């Protein structure tokens, strides 16, 4: 009983402290008027702030503000100079020369020079460095730094994705050279050249960055950037409403149903543009059932992609016909061979492939029913719903579909890597460079490689190699247009949709310019009135 009294007293004390003079009220009031602190929320915590050692998106959110690469994508997704002022590709396409920006300083005051670039290249390809990013740089035959502000790389054969690979953040040689990078304090206390200077990392809670007053593009206008770790999406949404975070990505339900009130729209600005990702249904092409292109085309015909977008994304997405993002230069807007939604045609195709309706409403061929399992990973509700809609649609044409959901690690190890699956419902992120080698080339069908559906097409291989082997944009586009036709004709995947990214930002933040690259491209120009 005494305890209960103490408890009541404590609660009273805490509530009494909610008065207007409490510091937390002041913080909020100040922010409301124009404190130029920007708070964003993230589900995950960064793992390592030396970019070559991390592959999670949280780490790259922070690295992207602290470091620069030699090149970067501008708001229209075209490559532009970052730490390199300009570059030349030699006539034979084998040599790239970067002319580095002068007068750029590391956050600790050292000059940025070609030595840093050379170091970043060397440490990335060093077999002792446990990095997942060495692959693109391994194509490099030699790298030289002829003077402090010139950097030259030579390739064995022309390699178009090479240019974009130099968007890799450049590391400070003077702090890392000759040391073991895996034990460097920089992984939790990075020093870069970027618009924001790293300030603090409170594990499990937040990271804070401060504007770099000497940034070569001009100091960012938001003085402080706070990255809060909020592992639950619902909690983050409540923090947003309570003013605890300034920006987050909404789910389709939140965008469509929970953020439409006048009050919300007065306090926040919502944005919507296609995300760099697509969801697909991939068929295991080792199975005889799926080796018949008519079956794959029939399944695509039977699936109503628009219905999936309405049901799963509440309309917040676009139909995908191929592996590219709508609006980018490699994307072909009219793919003629795409079958489209046509259940009658699906039935005709299956009939042509030799399937006849069995007694229980399921198609059969040689006594075997047309039945398969769609596998997907646990924890992604959208994929599960997608599979259920597909299951319902395929049933109407006489295909029996089962659904199996599995934990990510065992899904990969026991099923994907061993090729033990019928069909998978998964997604890919779409890289800025349209090269498709890793996912679609027939040499990439080995264990743990990404062409796990075992799609082999010499014509496609030829076009992929041709596309990455030239810097001529017109030629590359031509290759990728043909590739999209082939994929639409063959349907090794049924490409389902490209979802929309749905960020929301408090309306006190001004200067946001939505562009094909999203909204973050001009973050350093954002300001508070």
């Amino acid at each position, binding site marked *: *009983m005494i*305890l*209960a009294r103490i*408890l009541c007293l404590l*609660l009273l*004390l*805490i*509530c009494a*402290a*909610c008065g207007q003079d*409490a*510091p*937390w009220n002041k*913080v909020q009031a100040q922010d409301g008027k124009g404190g130029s602190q920007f*708070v964003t929320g993230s589900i995950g915590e960064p*793992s*390592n702030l030396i970019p070559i*050692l*991390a*592959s*999670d998106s949280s780490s790259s959110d922070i690295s992207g503000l602290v470091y620069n690469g030699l090149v970067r994508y501008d708001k229209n997704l075209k490559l532009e100079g970052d730490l390199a002022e300009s570059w030349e590709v030699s006539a034979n396409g084998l040599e790239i020369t970067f002319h580095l920006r002068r007068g750029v300083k590391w956050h600790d005051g050292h000059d940025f020079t070609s030595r840093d670039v050379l170091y970043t290249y060397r440490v990335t390809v060093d077999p002792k*460095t*446990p*990095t*997942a*990013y060495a*692959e693109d740089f391994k194509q490099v035959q030699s790298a030289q730094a002829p003077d402090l502000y010139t950097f030259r790389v030579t390739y064995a054969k022309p390699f178009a994705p090479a240019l974009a690979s130099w968007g890799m953040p450049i590391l400070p040689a003077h702090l890392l050279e000759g040391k073991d990078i*895996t034990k460097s304090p920089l*992984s*939790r206390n990075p020093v870069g050249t970027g618009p924001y200077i790293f300030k603090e990392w409170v*594990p*499990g*809670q*937040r990271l804070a960055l401060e504007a770099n007053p000497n940034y070569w593009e001009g100091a960012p206008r938001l003085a402080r950037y*706070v990255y*809060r*770790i*909020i*592992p*639950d999406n*619902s*909690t983050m949404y*409540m*923090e947003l*409403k*309570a003013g*605890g975070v300034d920006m987050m990505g909404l789910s389709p339900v939140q965008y469509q149903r929970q953020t439409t009130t006048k009050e919300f729209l007065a306090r926040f600005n919502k944005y919507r543009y296609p995300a760099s990702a697509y969801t697909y249904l991939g068929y295991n092409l080792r199975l005889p059932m799926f080796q018949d292109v008519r079956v794959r085309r029939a399944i695509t015909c039977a699936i109503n992609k628009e219905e999936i977008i309405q049901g799963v994304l509440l309309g917040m997405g676009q139909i995908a016909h191929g592996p590219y993002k709508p609006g980018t230069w490699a994307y072909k807007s009219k793919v003629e061979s795409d079958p489209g939604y046509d259940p009658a045609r699906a039935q005709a195709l299956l009939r042509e492939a030799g399937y006849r309706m069995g007694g229980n409403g399921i198609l059969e061929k040689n006594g075997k029913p047309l039945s398969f399992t769609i596998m997907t990973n646990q924890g992604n509700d959208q994929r599960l719903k997608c599979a259920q809609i597909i299951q319902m649609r395929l049933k109407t044409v006489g295909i029996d579909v089962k659904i199996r959901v599995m934990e*990510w*690690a*065992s899904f*990969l*190890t*026991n099923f994907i890597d061993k090729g033990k699956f019928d069909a998978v419902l998964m997604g*890919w992120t779409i*890289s800025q460079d349209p090269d498709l080698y*890793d996912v679609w080339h027939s040499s990439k069908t*080995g264990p*743990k*490689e*990404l062409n796990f559906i075992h799609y082999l097409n010499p014509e496609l291989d030829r076009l992929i190699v041709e596309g990455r082997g030239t810097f001529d944009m017109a030629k590359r586009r031509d290759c990728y247009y043909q590739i999209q036709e082939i994929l639409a004709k063959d349907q090794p995947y049924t490409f389902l949709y490209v979802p929309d990214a749905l960020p929301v930002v408090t309306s006190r933040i001004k200067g946001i310019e939505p562009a094909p690259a999203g909204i973050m491209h001009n973050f350093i120009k954002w300001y508070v009135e």
Partner: protein
Amino acid sequence: MLVPLLLGITLITFTVIHLAPGEPVEMQTAMSPKASAASRARLREFYGLDKPLHVQYGMWLSNLSRLDFGRSFAPDNRPVLDKIKERIPITISLNVIALILEFGLALPIGIMAAVHRDTLLDRAISVFVFVGFAVPTFWLALLCMYLFGVKLGWLPISGIHSLGSDQWSFWWRSLDLARHLVLPIAIATFGSLAGLSRYMRSTMIEVLSQDYITTARAKGVRERVIIYRHALKNALLPVITLLGFSLPALIGGSVIFETIFSIPGMGQLFYQGVMARDYPLVMGILVIGACLTLIGNLLADLCYALADPRIRHGRG
């Protein structure tokens, strides 16, 4: 006795975690177009995963004997002990407060229910504690966050400190921390009342039916004294065992809780460790947990002996 037990525990956990499909390297490089077979091999070698399992276990064990828990297999590659150290204070403080509240509330509630057995009060208490037990905590947490955080604005929603609180005076900072902990602790306590209070109720009922209580009543001892002096002492004995069992629970946090309230505690650390197949981290936390369990059991036995003369004198 403790050492072989501990060895057995580590061996079993080591086996189990290695039996789980997927490897740390795979979790980091899976489905990444940038990772080649060579870079995977490189990562495996870096973590020592290319060696046979018994060698890995031997290495881990010999490091452990020097109290070296190794380095995490997460990309940050930090010492496991550092990662645990930065998370353990908040988890322990939360759990200790919640435990004190739990015992402080559940014991009186249980006694009350036992004394007023089968009355309306008893039933009301049962309903109350079972509601707490049955309501999904994450749902209750979200409702409370919405009410107190968004609608009323009385309490912060998540985290354990306000932004910028590092510049405030000590008292304001402590108060800020307390404000952040009100919701999580209140909800955690509410959810855990059922078990202990029901336990207390049943032991109390049992004791109250004993002969010596009847004797005391016959002597005309006041009911208050009977309950709080004569009965409670004996009814509390089994509770000591429960207290001993709660020792290891002090370092284990609840994943759901910590996730909802964005509390950087042990539950999240362990969950992320398991999901990423971060073997050294998982093993480290399990070993500490196992040690605490063993110590807790030992302490409970000792306290029991101390409290109960029957055990002390070898008569059971």
